[in-house]
Structure formats: C-alpha cells, structure tokens
C-alpha cells in the first residue's frame, strides 16, 4: 500500500501534463504487473514449457531433440488416443448440457417467490461449496453395484444380486462421472444464470405475455437471449473443467482407454521417463482441443451478439 501512497503524493506535485500522463501510465503498469507476473510467468511459463517438452525439449532427462513431432505422431497415430479424446469430450459435453438444462429450469423456478426460499437458496448451493471428491464419494455410495440404489431395488424385490443392478460406475458410458459433474455444476450454473435473471428483471417477459406470447415463445425469444451471457460464461468454465479433470474419471471411469488427463497421469507415473514427453504431448493435446472448441464457442457467441447488435 505504501507504494501506492507514494505515487499518489508524487502525482499531487503536479508538474507538466505529459509527465502526469507518463506517471499515470507507470501507475497503471505498476498496478497491473503483479497479476501479470504471476499469470505470465507461472501460467504462461507452464504452457510454454508443456509445448516445448512435448516437442522433445527436456534436457533434464537428457533429451533434447527439439523440434521433434514424433511424440505427437506416436500419440495421434494410436487409435486409443482418439477413443480417449472422444471419451473426454463426451463426458465434458454431456454433463455440461445436462447441468445447463437443469440449471436453467432451476433458476426460472428460483426467481419466483415461494415459501422457504431463503432456506432453499442456502441449500442448493451446497455442492458448489464442497470439493469434487465429496461428490465422487457420494456417487460411489449411491450408484455402485453394492450401493444404496441397488439395495433399494433389492428391497422392493426387483433384483436379488448386486450383479443385476445396471452397472453405472466404471463403464465407458461414464454416467458416474457425469453424475458427479452435474451434481457439482448445477448450482454453479444456476448461480450465474439466476444472477443475470435478477439483474434484468421480468418486465420484458411480462410485456411479451401481455402481447400474447405463449410460454415457449417467451422463453426462447425473450428470456433465453437475456440470460445467454450467464450461460456462456458458466458453460465455458464448466466444460473446460470437465475436460481437464482427473479425479472423477480416474475413480469412476471405465479403465482403458481412459480420458486424456488420466492417460497423461499414467504416462507421468511410468517408470520409463521417456513416457513423460509422451504425457506432455497428451497434455498439450488436451489444451489444443479444448482451446479450439472454446474459441469456436466464444466466436460463435460474439457473432450472435453482434448480429443482435449488442456487442
């Protein structure tokens, strides 16, 4: 803080305007630099290092064949990689879409007054506050073949053997993984959408209703465009998380072929250090794929906004 004060006092001296401007500029840079340093050095550095390593630059393992595309070649050349990629995206997409639909319906209900709303607003945010690992534990407890749902079915006599319960966890359909993501992310998306809803008020909807629009029309042509910013930003964040998450697919996934983050982890855990570069190529592939998808998504959204003349 003392630095800020000092600069502020210097600014009070008020010399020529250009100097003032230069000082303001310096102040601006000074204020931005801590964030920039952390993000550029760590985040940017890690990204650059990942790319370099995946291209064969790892002098600390005694490997330096930069630029060497063989790691990507080996990775992309194997069919297992494409299955892994498909699974990664599949879990990411499906859970984001399910969570989104559930969140929209929930926020539309939340905006209305009802008894116990205060309590409800505490309650629905619970998953947001606790780690994904808790969600995984709950899914294991509820949906496993020996879990609570299976026992309830046995109780009502529908099955008499845990093997008869449809397998939900540890399959490539990944409903266990999706359940964790949805459970955790519905509150997050709801919060974002609900906040936007609160901000825009209900007048336009009411006006549309008075003009004779039915509910469907109101939702698709009035409400949805208005909450779109909240939808876009929260789905972006959730999708990116789902694609890069490790713990849920590791514990609840169907084994080989695993999702890409788990594949990368297995490469890094291999005693053979040559595999580390392969792992780095996997990691970079995750980045590239999710980057392309998210940029495409954002660009489409921007275009849409421009068309509507908002941006």
């Amino acid at each position, binding site marked *: 803080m003392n630095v800020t*004060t000092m600069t502020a006092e210097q600014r009070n001296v008020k010399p020529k305007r250009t100097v003032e401007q230069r000082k303001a500029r310096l102040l601006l840079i000074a*204020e*931005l630099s801590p964030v920039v340093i952390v993000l550029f050095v760590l985040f940017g550095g890690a990204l650059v290092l990942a790319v370099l390593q995946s291209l064969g630059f790892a002098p600390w393992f005694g490997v330096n064949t930069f630029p060497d595309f063989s790691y990507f070649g080996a990775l992309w050349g194997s069919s297992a990689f494409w299955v892994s990629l498909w699974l990664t995206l599949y879990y990411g997409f499906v859970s984001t879409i399910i969570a989104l639909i559930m969140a929209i319906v929930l926020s539309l209900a939340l905006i209305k007054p009802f008894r116990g709303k205060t309590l409800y607003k505490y309650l629905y945010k619970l998953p947001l506050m606790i*780690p994904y690992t808790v969600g995984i*534990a*709950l899914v294991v407890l509820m949906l496993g073949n020996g879990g609570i749902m299976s026992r309830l079915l046995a109780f009502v006599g529908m099955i008499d053997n845990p093997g008869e319960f449809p397998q939900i966890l540890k399959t490539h359909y990944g409903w266990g993984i999706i359940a964790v993501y949805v459970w955790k992310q519905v509150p997050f998306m709801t*919060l974002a959408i609900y906040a936007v809803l609160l901000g825009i008020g209900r007048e336009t909807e009411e006006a549309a209703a008075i003009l004779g629009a039915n509910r469907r029309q109101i939702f698709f042509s009035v409400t949805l465009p208005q909450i779109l910013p909240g939808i876009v930003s929260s789905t972006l964040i959730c999708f990116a998380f789902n694609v890069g998450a490790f713990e849920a697919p590791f514990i609840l996934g169907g084994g080989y072929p695993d999702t890409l983050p788990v594949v990368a982890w297995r490469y890094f855990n291999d005693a053979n250090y040559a595999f580390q570069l392969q792992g780095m190529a996997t990691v970079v592939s995750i980045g590239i794929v999710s980057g392309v998808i998210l940029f495409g998504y954002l660009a489409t959204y921007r275009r849409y906004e421009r068309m509507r003349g908002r941006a």
Partner: protein
Amino acid sequence: MASRKVTNTFNRLSPFQRFYLIAVAALIVGPFAPLIVQSLAFRWAWPNLLPSVWWLEQREKSPIPLAWDYVLSPYSRIYEATINTMAIGLAVTVICLAICLPAARVLARESFKGKNGFEFFLSLPLIVPEAAIGIALLMIFINLGLAGSYVGIIIAHLIPTIPYMVRMLTAVYQGLGREFEEQAMILGANRWQILRMVTLPMLMPGVVAGALFTFLVSSNIFLLTFFLGQGKIITLPTLLFSKISGGTLDASAAGITLIVSLPGIILLVISERFIKEEAFGKGFGN
C-alpha cells in the same frame, strides 16, 4: 383479467416447478443421509438398508480405532489436512486480494491499448484445463525446489483463483462510480485519505465476497495440490481422494467425507450474508 393471469404465471410456481425444486433438493442433500449411516457402520453389506453391525457395538471390542474413533484421531491426518487447507486458503486469499485489487481498479476505470486482449488473457486459466498446466508446473517446481512445499502450492493456487477475484473486484469497482471519491477530493481529502476513508469501505462488501470465493476455490482444488504436493502436503480434497481412489467407501472414508464437507457448509452459512447473487453474477455475466 389478462394482466392478472400474467402476474400469476410470473409469481407462482407451476406444479412442475414445485416438484422440480423438491427433486433437486433431494438430489443435492439426499445422499448425505446414507453417508452419515455409513460413517456409523461397522459392517454394512448388500442388500441391507441399515448396517448389520453398528460401530458403537464393536467400539469396546475392537483393538483398533474404528469409524469416527479413527476419523477423529490424529491417525487419520484429518487435523493436519484441515489446518493445511485453511492455511493455504488464507494465504492464497490474502495474496490474491493484494495483487488483484490494483489490477481490478485499472480494469474498471482506465482504458488502455490491448485491454480486451488483457482481459481475455486474465480469464484464460479458467478455460485451460488444469491437467494441462499442473504437470508442467511440477517440472518447473522440481527444478526450483518448490515441489512438495507450501510456497509452491500457494503459488499454484493463485492461477485458478486470480481470474475469479479480478472479475469480482472489477465488477465492484465498476459499480462504485467515481462521484464519492471526486466529492471527497473537492472537500480537500488527499488520495490516501480517499482510499482509506471512501474507496476501501465502499469496496468492502465486494472484497469480502471475493475473498470468500477465493478461499472456497482454493480449498476445493484437488489436481494442482495432488500433483505439486507430492504426498508431502495433504489437504482435505487430497486426503479424501487417497481414501476413495479405489472406488469404495468404508466407515472411516464416509466420516472423512463428512468432515471434508464441513468447511464448505460453514462457508455457505456465512457467505450467504456477504455474497449477494447480484454481485456474484456481475463477475460472471460477461
């Protein structure tokens, strides 16, 4: 008549919505009931809906601490993990706040060349998968000697927290308006006084909200802690992960799951007073 009907549609829950609210609540809170039962069980095999033997029945007989006796003993490492989680969360929050406040002021008030690009860069950590940076960070940290250290983990936690903090604080700054500060200036206050007496108090609600949210994000991070802690530093999420990584949940794992949920529940209760949906939404509503 028409207008009354309209008001009704907008002010009353439809039967479906009523059902939906209950269903969502059941999905969210329901699983905690069997979790509590599991944490009290000694032997709870399929297809029993309740444990055949409860922990309390075995408590005296057992030579080793079971269920909650284990969870609440130092053997479970739950205290260590809780303290680590809190300490790391606090440190991350303080540092994050300190470096994001000035940046947020600039982003809210000044315009400069490349601002849009800069803002985009700031939100990149949110949309670049954690796995993509975690392992590369580990390489850097091993070489710097930061792997498996508190400093390393705190630094790493800044990456996913900065974007949230900056966005939330920027939103607050934007909502602030300059009038009050300008008035104070006219009244003869110097910049330091303005900052201390006007700006900071007005920023306070936003700062608290941002701090709570940062703490929350930090205390929920698994991947970065897991990669960079190298087993030496355990937090609540990593402790629970090692307990359930096989995909089963015994009594002590269930107990640990409950404890891991506790800070979030406490935070939820206090945060509702500070985090207003509107403020939060400004951080996300693009």
